């Protein structure tokens, strides 16, 4: 599989003059859409943390979190360049498209990783910088290299990589890791499976083609639907914990309650979708698409409620 992709790349390189990358290609290597969610959750961590931080330092800390997440994304694209070339969704990324050479992408990712961690250490404290370094390692090595191609539980454990930003934001202000950011970590951790498996239900042919053992490919669609529903129930219970433990107020609690009920409704729709005997959707996975879209809104509103609750 890897050889096939490498041959494909080298053949294209021989036929098409290599004009070099545009600045937009280097930006695309940082996965800007993923980074936007990371920036948001990291900023919430900063806002809800007790204590004062200079606004300029806060802005630099958020920039460092974004840079670190982008660097991890570049390292992920470097390692996954062979399978990215095989999937329709990822074949236009800068490396498989032949716009950026793999070695350049690797150097770019490594340099940005080091710069982001060093700057964060300089601007805030060693605790925040260490958590950022761990999060980059978690995404680039634990998820990308060890988990993604080897286990259908890849995104369950790998979900931890995206869960670090609120912890980093909190640590940037307080210099330590508290209970509330750990609960937010767990919320993002358990949010990732229903979010990603909803997507993989209707993108499983792509994953199958690339040989990635996503749950629908290995265990089938029906098993995945049950998992989406199960993890949504766990997420619902976890999202109420900050309120029940008195770490968040009524605004957060009621928002988590309402959003959780709606998310369970969407997950139930995924479970009860019209399907054949193997669990494959007969409705072009409309409920799964709706659940995927709502999951993004869910996380955004839940974290926003947490910040509003703290500010009021």
């Amino acid at each position, binding site marked *: 599989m890897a050889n096939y992709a490498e041959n494909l790349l080298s053949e294209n*390189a*021989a*036929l*098409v*003059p*290599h*004009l*070099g*990358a*545009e*600045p937009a290609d*280097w930006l695309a290597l940082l996965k800007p859409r993923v980074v936007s969610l990371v920036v948001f959750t990291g900023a919430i961590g900063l806002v809800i943390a007790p204590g004062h931080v*200079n606004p*300029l*330092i806060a802005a*630099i800390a958020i*920039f460092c979190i974004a840079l670190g997440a982008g660097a991890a994304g570049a390292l992920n694209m470097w390692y996954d360049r062979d399978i990215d070339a095989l999937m329709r969704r990822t074949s236009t990324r800068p490396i498989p498209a032949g716009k950026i*050479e793999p070695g350049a992408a690797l150097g770019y990712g490594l340099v940005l990783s080091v*710069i982001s961690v060093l*700057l964060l250490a*300089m*601007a805030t404290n060693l605790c925040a910088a260490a958590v950022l370094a761990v999060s980059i390692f978690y995404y680039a090595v634990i998820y990308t290299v060890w988990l993604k191609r080897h286990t259908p539980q890849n995104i369950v454990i790998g979900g931890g990589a995206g869960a670090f930003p609120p912890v980093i934001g909190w640590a940037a202000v307080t210099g330590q890791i508290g209970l509330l950011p750990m609960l937010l970590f767990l919320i993002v951790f358990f949010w990732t499976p229903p979010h990603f498996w909803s997507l993989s239900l209707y993108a499983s042919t792509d994953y199958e083609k690339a040989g990635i053992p996503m749950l629908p490919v290995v265990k089938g669609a029906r098993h995945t639907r049950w998992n989406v529903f199960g993890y949504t129930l766990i997420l619902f219970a976890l999202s109420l914990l900050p309120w029940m433990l008195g770490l968040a107020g009524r605004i957060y609690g009621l928002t988590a309650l309402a959003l959780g009920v709606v998310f369970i409704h969407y997950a139930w729709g995924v479970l009860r979708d019209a399907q054949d005997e193997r669990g494959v959707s007969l409705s072009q996975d409309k409920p799964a698409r709706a659940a995927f879209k709502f999951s993004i809104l869910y996380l955004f509103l839940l974290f926003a409620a947490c910040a509003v609750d703290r500010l009021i």
Partner: protein
Amino acid sequence: MMAAAENRDYECERMPRVTLGKAQWSDEQKAEFMRRRRARNFLLLAALGGFCLIVYVIALVKLHEYGQMW
């Protein structure tokens, strides 16, 4: 020998390693290559400038608020 001489011509213009002796470059493509390289160089310059600025701002704020960097 001839192939080596051709490759040297390309190297003079510092074309990317992957295309040496493989692709025919038109004038438009050469101009586009130069434009992209210039854009990349300006981007690198801006990134370096930004890095220096951030370090400067961190130093100013920390020295002003805490009287020390670390």
